[in-house]
């Protein structure tokens, strides 16, 4: 099994977002592997351990993303690839990200590609399915169970709370939903080993990509924080009276009931 995992470096979920000069401030923020990508990495490792093969984690980003790739290697991935666009591109969108990944993967012998179903920063969930389309392979999103038998694949996926059971075949791209597995923490020996595992760095030139090929289709023109909510009302008095008042307020003041 030749398995690839798409990972993204994202803000830690604990972080408050600060906007200044029209940009999200990154100084001092903690970064993590996108949580949904952790499920993808874990599943890739389990499938390799059961079926043999190799797990390669791939990311697009800058030099900083090396830390998240090392973490994935420490979890148990075999190799890592950083497609460094820092010097070449000011902006990326889902179109350009998928294009770059497809150029990297198009002549690889791919059996299975895993990714998170969405990144918790941009939240578009597009790159996986776009990539599968560019590679001409099938994809299944938001999966919660994956069974592979030869080239036959049985999947359970989450569709808005219901479960869909389906069958398909390799080669395949899947995106992970919460509940797929319990991602492991890197062990100390794992962290030691990860330092020696191969981490390849590529630039657009190495993939024969011209900057014009990856010009973005959509552009962010403004970033802002949601308006601060005015302080709410904590009711007081006897509990039963509070409940009556609340229902009354929801009915007559807020008009939502």
């Amino acid at each position, binding site marked *: 099994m030749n398995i690839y995992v798409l990972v993204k470096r994202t*803000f830690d*979920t*604990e972080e*408050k*977002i600060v*906007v200044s000069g029209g940009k999200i401030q990154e100084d001092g923020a903690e970064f993590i592997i996108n949580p949904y990508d952790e499920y993808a990495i874990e599943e890739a490792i389990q499938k390799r351990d059961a079926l043999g093969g190799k797990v390669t984690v791939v990311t697009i980003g800058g030099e900083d993303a090396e830390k998240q790739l090392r973490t994935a290697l420490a979890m148990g991935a075999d190799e890592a690839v950083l497609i460094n666009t820092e010097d070449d591109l000011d902006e990326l*969108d*889902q*179109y350009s990200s*998928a294009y770059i990944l497809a150029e990297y993967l198009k002549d690889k012998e791919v059996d299975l590609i895993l990714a998170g179903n969405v990144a*918790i*920063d941009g*939240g*578009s*969930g*597009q*790159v996986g*399915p*776009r990539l*599968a*389309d560019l590679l001409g392979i*099938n*994809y299944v*999103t938001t999966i919660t169970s994956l069974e592979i038998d030869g080239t036959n694949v049985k999947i359970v996926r*989450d*569709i*808005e*709370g*219901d*479960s*869909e*059971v*389906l*069958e398909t075949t390799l080669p395949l791209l899947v995106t992970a*939903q*919460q509940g797929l597995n319990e991602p492991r923490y890197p062990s100390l020996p794992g962290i030691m080993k990860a330092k020696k595992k191969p981490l390849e760095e590529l630039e657009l030139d190495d993939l024969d990509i011209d900057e014009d090929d990856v010009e*973005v*289709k*959509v*552009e*962010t*023109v*403004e*970033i*802002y*924080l949601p308006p601060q*909510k005015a302080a*709410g*009302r*904590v*009711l007081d008095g006897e*509990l039963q009276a*509070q*409940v009556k008042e*609340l*229902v009354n307020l*929801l009915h007559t003041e*807020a008009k*939502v*009931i």
Partner: protein
Amino acid sequence: MSKKVLVLGEVREGSLRNVSFEAIAAAKQIADGGEIVGVLIGDAVAGVANELVAYGADRVVTVEHPHLKSYTSDGYSQAFMAVVGEESPEAIVFGHTALGKDLSPKIASKLQSGLVSDVTEIEGAGDSALFIRPIYSGKAFEKVKVKDGIVFVTIRPNNIAPLTKDESRSGGVSSLAVDITNLRTIIKEVVRKSAEGVDLSEAKVVVAGGRGVKSEEGFEPLKELANVLGGAVGASRGACDAEYCDYSLQIGQTGKVVTPDLYIAAGISGAIQHLAGMSNSKVIVAINKDPEANIFKVADYGIVGDLFEVVPMLIEEFKALKANA
């Protein structure tokens, strides 16, 4: 410049989903006077075509085929791309639903277009339209402009108001014959787990429980309250991790992001990750024993008290209100 817009109508269990009417309203703004063409895909969907017209579509194209009974990205993309080939639209709107999220990137890839996902608001119209969408699960928002190619957006349910239904509107309904072949995915079954058919992301009312619910049984009063209000039940990560409920109910930065009219948080402390998933709800009610709980900072109304006392009282009061209405 006005634009011709395709809107995918989503049919579930024989009925159009509300988000499809919201998508028509979004399309109206993008069209800026241009034509709005509803698209229906399935094995027998023509019956709801007139409803799309009543909500603002100028006409409807249906693609019906036995292989389109269940959604697959292969089948639906073949059908939708055939309509695109016939109609040459300048814009496309889908709902940001499980189906819309799965299908839209594939269509965008085939069209080599951008795709603005999960739009909650549209500013301006036609060529100058700007699309507002949450990032970092609602901790911030971005305004996005389409630079090049087809304007393709998915809209988040419950955020863009549908146009007023007008049964007297009329529009043509035509069918397009498409050969649907080579489906690489076979759907075996769908196991319904969501309660009483109210989908969390589309619910007008969400009643969510946290660690304070204490057990799987503890969710029962919340379910009853949701039922009385015609809403859906959600949960914090804490409640899911403690196995009081299924992960499919989780609301937060990991999990679902919801924006109902009314969000009732019971026994939820209000971790920043949870707030990201619900703080843009229109009205938030917090019920918590701890007066210092973070959830009160985003709540419009708060009751400091034991949810197992408060929720049953709420159920009775809402029942009384409904009975008198």
